[in-house]
């Protein structure tokens, strides 16, 4: 066996991955927190007021990174779902299912903040343009994946069924986007451009980028945390989990996140 596949196997084994995840997770959360706070400071305080939108534009500092993350999480989930279905790797099943709730959270924040931005800017909480509608159905897809995963008794079968649905969603999402776009040409006048001319000042750009990095790290922290739970659940009968559970039951066991 060559070294690369050896390491791949080693990393893919649940106890090893659990150890690595336990070590990485606080760093992901921690760095995300620090970068996020700096980014928020930059967005709320340092960045100048927009000459058109006033201070309301500051919502984009949370809205846009969350919108990216909603899609990124879906992509991450779909890639893992594909690997899980084709090669039946337990770890990828766990990772795919771990990214669904985080992705749903980001998509939810996107919708709420988008709505809160839309009200002062367009005078309406909601508009049926392609991007918003796709985002809404992205949320429904997340709910479908989570719902299917929770509805099936056998955990591995549940993960495989939900992974399959996630892959169908990958096909569906661009079609929804395309169809709503077409639909909007039919009902002209209701479209509002979400992003104005995309000339953005450097003082506005760096907080945005920092927050984008922070949300990515937060996403990975959350995925690792859920993957740890998922691995425990899937390997509940294995020795390494039992050792782990009994080691943590001691009240003195601290420093474990």
């Amino acid at each position: 066996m060559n070294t690369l596949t050896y390491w791949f196997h080693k990393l893919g084994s649940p106890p090893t991955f659990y150890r690595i995840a336990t070590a990485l997770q606080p760093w992901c959360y921690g760095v995300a927190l620090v970068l996020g706070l700096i980014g928020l400071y930059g967005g709320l305080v340092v960045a100048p007021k927009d000459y058109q939108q006033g201070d309301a534009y500051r919502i984009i500092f949370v809205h846009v990174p969350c919108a990216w993350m909603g899609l990124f999480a879906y992509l991450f989930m779909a890639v893992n779902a594909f690997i899980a279905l084709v090669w039946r790797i337990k770890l990828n099943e766990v990772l795919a299912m771990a990214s669904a709730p985080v992705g749903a959270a980001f998509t939810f924040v996107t919708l709420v903040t988008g709505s809160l931005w839309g009200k002062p800017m367009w005078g309406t909480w909601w508009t049926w343009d392609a991007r918003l509608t796709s985002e809404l159905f992205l949320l429904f897809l997340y709910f479908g994946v989570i719902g299917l995963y929770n509805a099936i008794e056998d955990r591995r079968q549940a993960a495989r069924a939900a992974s399959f649905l996630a892959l169908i969603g990958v096909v569906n999402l661009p079609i929804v986007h395309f169809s709503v776009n077409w639909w909007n040409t039919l009902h002209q006048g209701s479209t509002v451009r979400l992003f104005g001319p995309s000339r953005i000042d450097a003082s506005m750009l760096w907080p945005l980028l920092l927050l984008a990095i922070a949300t990515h790290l937060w996403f990975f922290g959350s995925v690792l945390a859920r993957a740890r739970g998922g691995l425990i659940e899937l390997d509940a009968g294995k020795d390494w989990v039992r050792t782990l559970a009994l080691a943590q039951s001691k009240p003195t066991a601290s420093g474990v996140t």
Partner: protein
Amino acid sequence: MRPGSTRAACLALLRRDLLLVWRRRGDTLTPLLFALIVVALFPLAIGAQMETLRPIAVGVVFVATLLAGLLALDSLFRGDYEDGSLEQLVVSPHPLALLLACKIAVHWLTTALPLIALSPLLGELLFLDPALRGLLPLALALTTPLLSLIGAVCVALTVGMQRSGMLLALLVLPLYVPVLIFGAGACNAAQMGLPYLAPLLWLAAGLVLALVLAPLACAAALRISTS
């Protein structure tokens, strides 16, 4: 034709499913009645004037058809799953996707086709624009097979569950959105005097794709959910 050949198997399956529907022919009325009642609720809820109902007639008929189809989806594999016939299909030496395609075809014939036949009446109840009398059944004829095919994949994913109704709706409806948009959109475009051929062609293209891919996806989903 040799017994045991794939063609014989498909024919036997088609014959059996049609026979089963015939034995319980009363059940096929349920989706029709459901669609009729849903449509009848709209004038009662928003007023019976022609000028309020006519603009929404197409949309209401489409949504009613879609919901009736959703209601009927549950029966697609449930009986076969419960009495063990589904296992027999899975372990039969024929391509499962092909057998499932036959089942979906019978299901469409017995649940969606009557709805298409009923659609002019549903339209009349809502004062449908007379110009759309021909187009509405045509759009439905392109839409409903897509709905059956897409729905079948989701039913296959939920087949082993006890109470799958609400979950099935959650899985299926986001996938139905583009189909609904193009189907109803074509009629709306025609009503506004805009060209309506493009969405119909999109639907036809989607249907061709789904005819090939959906049975395969359905078979894969079924193997996951029956394991």
